[in-house]
């Protein structure tokens, strides 16, 4: 009969939870950064203002 290895069980569950949670938080962080960029004044007038035309060839 095998002894219980609760340490290993905890490690497995803990690491898995950390990985999944970490990815979810990573997604949330990128989403927040994107939202911040969207809300910035430069984004207020997309199209003409956001893509400056190269007027002259240097």
């Amino acid at each position: 009969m095998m002894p219980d290895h609760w340490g290993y069980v905890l490690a497995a569950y803990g690491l898995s939870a950390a990985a999944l949670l970490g990815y979810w938080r990573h997604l949330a962080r990128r989403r927040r950064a994107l939202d911040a960029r969207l809300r910035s004044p430069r984004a207020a007038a997309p199209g003409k203002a956001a893509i400056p035309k190269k007027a002259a060839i240097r």
Partner: protein
Amino acid sequence: MSARATRILGGLALLALAVGLAAGFGYAPREAVQGNVQRIMYIHVPAVLTAYLAFGLVLVGSIGALATGRAGWDRLAGAAAELGVLFTGVTIVSGSIWGKPTWGTWWTWDARLTSTAVLFLVYVGYLLLRAMVDEPERRARIAAVVGIVGAANIPIVHFSVKWWRALHQPSTILGPEPSPIAAPIAAALFVNWVAFTLLFLYLLLRRVELARLEDAWVPETRR
């Protein structure tokens, strides 16, 4: 999918995970041969099944991207690949931690772990490739071809590793799966598998949404 529906899905996933946890520790009994260490299986098996689902979606997205040329398919492929790598990592780590007290070693070249490791390597390469191409259309096509090759290779890897193992080592007595699976264990496995699938779908939706927004804005904010 609307933001609200996605949030509901996330809540459902969380609930299912909680139920799965309860099932894994409360409902399912202590396994006769391996003891409580066997409970790691309630992560390991659902994770690998979810990973296969993810890589199946990578194939679907890759074929769709080539067939239709629409960016949405490629976003699906890329998102699914990220999640597939994540869940494969969980599979490998949980399998390794399970193996240490069970077989006495952190790693063993048994058929499933080896196949899973090769899968991991293939799709990490796929993600690296995606990271090296900036233009969305180019990236979509290049990634799609690799995605198709990677997916087509999965059964080939499976058989080659299985036969290779049969040659080089007789099967171990303590395999990862107890042969006849008791009903409570099967039930707990099923619940956890459903929970993982829900979690996967939720994360997939969020990742695809993120990609869609980034693709719309990156060309302009990059100036």
